[in-house]
């Protein structure tokens, strides 16, 4: 399923296009609960990876290593920094602080209320860039750009805390966007959003991806995974169960079932109809329709 090199322990996974390399990563909370058991991974520049797994599978623990919030108990995590030291520009997170890594890796937390504290949306978006030590003119420029891109101009001078949840969510993402990290980690950004807000946000993320950012989307929503991500990383009990093209992962959906995750309704329908000639990797309603018509059904 997943290519062999990705699964070999301790091998050299770095390539010139690596954005993140994880080598035999182990981590335990409080020395007791082993959250990660020997993870080997390479995420390339410009990848769009959905990170899937039950709570407790190690998803959040893994991605927190990428911006330095957690440091490996065993193994290494290498992230492409803005300045090169090795030939591929990868730096060990163990040598860097969260603040230093924040330049490269942006982390949008699940609950926007855990970040929002400013009097105005403008100030909120300026917080990150200012912490990076950028000159005030640059900060202001980035804030205006983010306000425009996320369609927040009319709320620029209002306190984010009193705005509706959908807007607070967008502000949380925009605030990290303003820091222009190369890599975006989004922890379940669509929880609690209605369909339209979800699509708006996913489109914004898609746009960031098209402009060259690497996207790591931690999510439970399989419909979004099917519709937007190129690759899927499935975790269970602190280990990688699968890491491959999303289509391939959904094709072998016993992997998902293994960790009690259900593929989208349309994928399930197609799978039930495989004996009648339907393909087993249908990811969207349109695909199903096209495949069904081809069957002459």
């Amino acid at each position, binding site marked *: 399923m997943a290519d062999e090199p990705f699964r070999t322990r301790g091998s050299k996974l770095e390539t010139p296009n690596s954005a993140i390399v994880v080598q035999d990563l182990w981590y335990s909370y409080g020395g007791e609960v082993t959250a990660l058991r020997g993870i080997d991974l390479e995420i390339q520049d410009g990848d769009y990876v959905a990170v899937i797994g039950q709570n407790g599978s190690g998803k959040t623990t893994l991605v927190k290593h990428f911006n330095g919030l957690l440091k490996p108990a065993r193994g290494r995590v290498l992230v492409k920094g803005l300045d090169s030291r090795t030939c591929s520009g990868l730096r060990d997170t163990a040598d860097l602080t969260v603040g230093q890594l924040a330049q490269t890796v942006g982390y949008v937390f699940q609950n926007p209320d855990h*970040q929002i504290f400013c009097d105005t949306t403008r100030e909120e978006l300026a917080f990150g860039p200012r912490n990076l030590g950028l000159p005030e003119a640059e900060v202001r420029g980035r804030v205006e750009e983010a306000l425009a891109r996320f369609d927040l101009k009319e709320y620029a001078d209002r306190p984010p805390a009193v705005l509706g949840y959908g807007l607070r969510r967008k502000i949380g993402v925009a605030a990290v966007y303003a820091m222009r990290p190369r890599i975006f980690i989004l922890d379940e950004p669509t929880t609690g959003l209605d369909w339209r807000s979800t699509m708006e946000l996913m489109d914004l993320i898609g746009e960031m991806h098209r402009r060259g950012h690497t996207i790591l989307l931690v999510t439970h929503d399989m419909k979004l995974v099917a519709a937007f991500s190129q690759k899927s990383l499935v975790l269970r009990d602190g280990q990688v169960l699968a890491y491959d093209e999303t289509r391939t992962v959904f094709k072998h959906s016993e992997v998902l079932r293994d960790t009690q995750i259900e593929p989208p309704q349309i994928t399930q329908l197609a799978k039930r109809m495989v004996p009648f000639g339907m393909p087993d990797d249908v990811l969207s309603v349109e695909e199903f329709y096209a495949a069904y018509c081809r069957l002459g059904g």
Partner: protein
Amino acid sequence: MSFSFDLYVQRRSWLHAVDPRVKLAFVFLGTLLMLAFKNLFVMLLSLVVTHLLIFSAGVPGHKVKWVWKTMLPINILIPTLWVIFYPEGPTVLFQFWFLKVTALSILRGVSLALRLDAIAFICFTWLFTTDQASLVRSLVKLGLPFEWGLVLAIGLRYIPTFYGLYTIVSEAQQARALDLTRGNFFTRVRSYLPILIAMLISALRTSEQLARAMESRALGLPGIQRTCLRDIRFRPADYAYTALLIAIFSFLLTLRFQFGLGTHPLYLF
């Protein structure tokens, strides 16, 4: 990330079964006794008694060690300060410039530290063997209005949650390159503001939701007296313990004030 800000050690022992009100009385009377006496042997005796009680209740040794570890700064600081600032008594052991170290001041300092240890262990005898719900229930039965008891219980319940909230908000703000380590004392304190404000706003939202949840459980139904599933009731043993407590208390108090027992740190009379 699941721990409980709870000193309670879950066991089934005779001491756990004692009504929390009796244990509360023990704390109250015991503290009064410790304040009345000044003799270090009395304090030591109290410590021995409380340790026996605690161990008989099945509390593991590392918990007791933890209390001593926590009290260590006090146990070092108080005798030292006392010796430095309150030299008294005839026997001078050491003198250097303004520092006069006397035997009596050492004894007084040590017995004061031991007094605090004794009071601490009296409290922990109560806290190790009483779960939070029973604790609050005992206060309510002694006259605390139910709503106050509920506020106390909810406060205790949410301490670990808010600690977890602090952790996650701190991580979220640090992920936006917030630097908590730079600058002088004042700069560093100010750098915690983004964390504290976000925490406060989250806490306010949670408290509003909490209020609605409580209302939806019919809290404050007019004309109805609340009942309690796990009520605490005095058993015959509890009456006996109370009587014993009062007897010992009165006896020791009489010894203290009638006969002057234990007013001096070293000599009993």
